[in-house]
């Protein structure tokens, strides 16, 4: 090639120069392992697929979700339908997992209860997610006094003990789903705010943000077009894990009698109902309890998988 020409040939993909980290171990991507032609999302999906437990959890959760959505269709009975001639029956052919003190079918109640619990879980996670992101983003991006104010607010909310929440919940709410979601969201937004703030503060210093400013981008463009998309991974992981926390909290609230009020079943208040009868009618406690356990486990595994897939600091050379 003649001297001084500009290279027009497409460089063979994966032809990146190798850069070693301080420890001397070539990092996976630096070894030219860029996947060809794939977006970040596709790469993340590939990484996620490798996490067997997370994949399995995804399937299980999909099933749980499906059953919750289809509860009216697939449950054999209504959730408050009483069969007074069949109270406290163990699992059998007519009532697959038994009945309670009022002869209500446990299976149907578990299915409908799942609806409530999942609804609450998702609703809280979403609301807390939005709230936490907004506050964290504002604090992280603008800094200064706004940051100070936002962080003190966060500290304030973090300091509120669960007991107070319970009292407030019992007084202020009617036990409806909406009120519970609001109360729980107010209790769960803080960790995400802190995390988002941290990510924004570090991203803010990155050169591509400086570059955006240099070309004249406005603050809102920088926040929504540059910073948020790069924070999405962290937010998704956190929101997922918040779902688990929310379901658990809702169960706790309902168990203690502050949450969802009967006759609407929730896994939590079903536990409360069955608590006293555990020795003679264990199925009243095992099945809702199992449902909670399974759901939360799966959500946590899913969160782990998402973190592995989306968290950029986790890229490492695997054997």
């Amino acid at each position, binding site marked *: 090639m003649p001297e001084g020409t500009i290279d027009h040939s497409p460089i063979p993909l994966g032809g990146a120069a190798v850069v070693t980290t301080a420890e001397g171990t070539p990092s996976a991507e630096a070894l030219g392992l860029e996947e060809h032609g794939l977006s970040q999302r596709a790469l993340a999906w590939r990484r996620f697929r490798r996490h067997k437990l997370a994949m399995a959890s995804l399937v299980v959760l999909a099933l749980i979700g499906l059953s919750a959505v289809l509860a009216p269709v697939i449950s054999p009975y209504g959730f408050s339908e009483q069969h007074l001639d069949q109270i406290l029956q163990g699992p059998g052919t007519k009532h697959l997992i038994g009945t309670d003190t009022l002869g209500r079918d446990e299976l149907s109640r578990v299915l409908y209860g799942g609806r409530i619990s999942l609804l609450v879980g998702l609703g809280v996670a979403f609301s807390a997610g939005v709230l936490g992101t907004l506050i964290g983003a504002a604090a992280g991006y603008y800094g200064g006094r706004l940051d100070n104010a936002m962080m003190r607010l966060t500290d304030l909310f973090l300091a509120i003990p669960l007991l107070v929440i319970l009292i407030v919940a019992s007084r202020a709410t009617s036990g409806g789903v909406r009120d519970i979601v609001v109360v729980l969201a107010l209790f769960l937004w803080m960790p995400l705010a802190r995390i988002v703030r941290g990510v924004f503060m570090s991203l803010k210093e990155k050169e591509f943000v*400086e570059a955006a400013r240099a070309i004249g981008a406005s603050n809102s463009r920088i926040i929504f077009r540059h910073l948020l998309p790069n924070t999405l991974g962290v937010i998704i992981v956190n929101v997922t894990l918040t779902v688990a926390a929310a379901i658990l909290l809702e169960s706790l609230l309902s168990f203690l009698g502050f949450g969802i009020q009967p006759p609407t079943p929730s896994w939590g208040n079903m536990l409360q109902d069955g608590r006293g009868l555990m020795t003679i009618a264990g199925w009243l406690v095992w099945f809702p309890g199992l449902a909670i356990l399974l759901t939360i486990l799966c959500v946590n595994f899913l969160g782990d998988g998402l973190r592995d897939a989306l968290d950029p600091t986790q890229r490492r050379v695997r054997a």
Partner: protein
Amino acid sequence: MSVATEAAAVPQRSRQELVRVTDLVKHFPITRGVIIRQQVGAVHAVDGISFTIRKGETLGLVGESGSGKSTTARLLLRLLDPTSGQVELEGQDITTAAGSQLREVRQEMQMIFQDPYASLDPRMTVRDIVGEPLMVWNRWRNGGAMQVAELLERVGLNPDHASRFPHEFSGGQRQRIGIARALALRPKLIVCDEPVSALDVSVRAQILNLLANLQRDFDLTYLFISHDLSVVRQVADRVAVMYLGKVVEIGDRDELYRRPVHPYTQALVSAVPIPDPTKERKREHIVLGGDIPSPVNPPSGCRFRTRCFKAQDVCAEQEPELVDRGHGHPSACHFAEPMELIP
């Protein structure tokens, strides 16, 4: 040599001034306290510098860590607000420009960043990255995608790759993407902040050649910042040397390299190794003692005196001004004397 200005010593056609910087100062406050913040000191990143850049030329700005060269770049582009001083672009005072006025000015000056891995948003396609300036300034509508394709070709990239993501490209290619982005608005001035420092040696030449060609084709003016004197010798027309927030010498490129007069410049020039074993081993090497002082508390008088081999008492008492001391270009040393350090 007569007391001539730099322009006269340089065989250039007379050019108008594009940028003028006067007594520019930037102090970063150091605060303590949580509720009530008190300033306890300041980092004197840039402490009163003045220079001009003529249209079409490349001014090289060299210095080591703590010299303030990167801060200067950002002050020029108004990515930072100066503590005091003046910045003029094409005669217009932009020191205190803000809001929409500032954003207007931004179209005239752009920047190429050092780190090709961090200066591109990993979640945007190349087309979006290079096209963003056009988006921001509503120039995308009439054939934005075509403009992007053209820019990519100009910088030596295949326009078909526009829908790819930064991580699919090598360091040198990413830098080309950054250059394409800087060109999108057809600015007059481009500040290049260590554009090749993070690249492999065999790729550097490509990028430097590209920058030279683009300068010619687009009639660009460059402020080229680098700690690598060998690179600056290749690209600059004039060179300014910075130390601890001040300019210590500024002049025509070849003059400065062949016969530097400020002891710091001399130390710098002699410290850069020459890739020729015979020359390199025969040379005189000035090895400075000590470390670079902290910019929080710069030495009194001449800042370089703590490491200078010529330091006398007067150096601690009186800060030398940046003036021509009879050598054809300004220097800031009481004992400035030319020395030849390149065989």
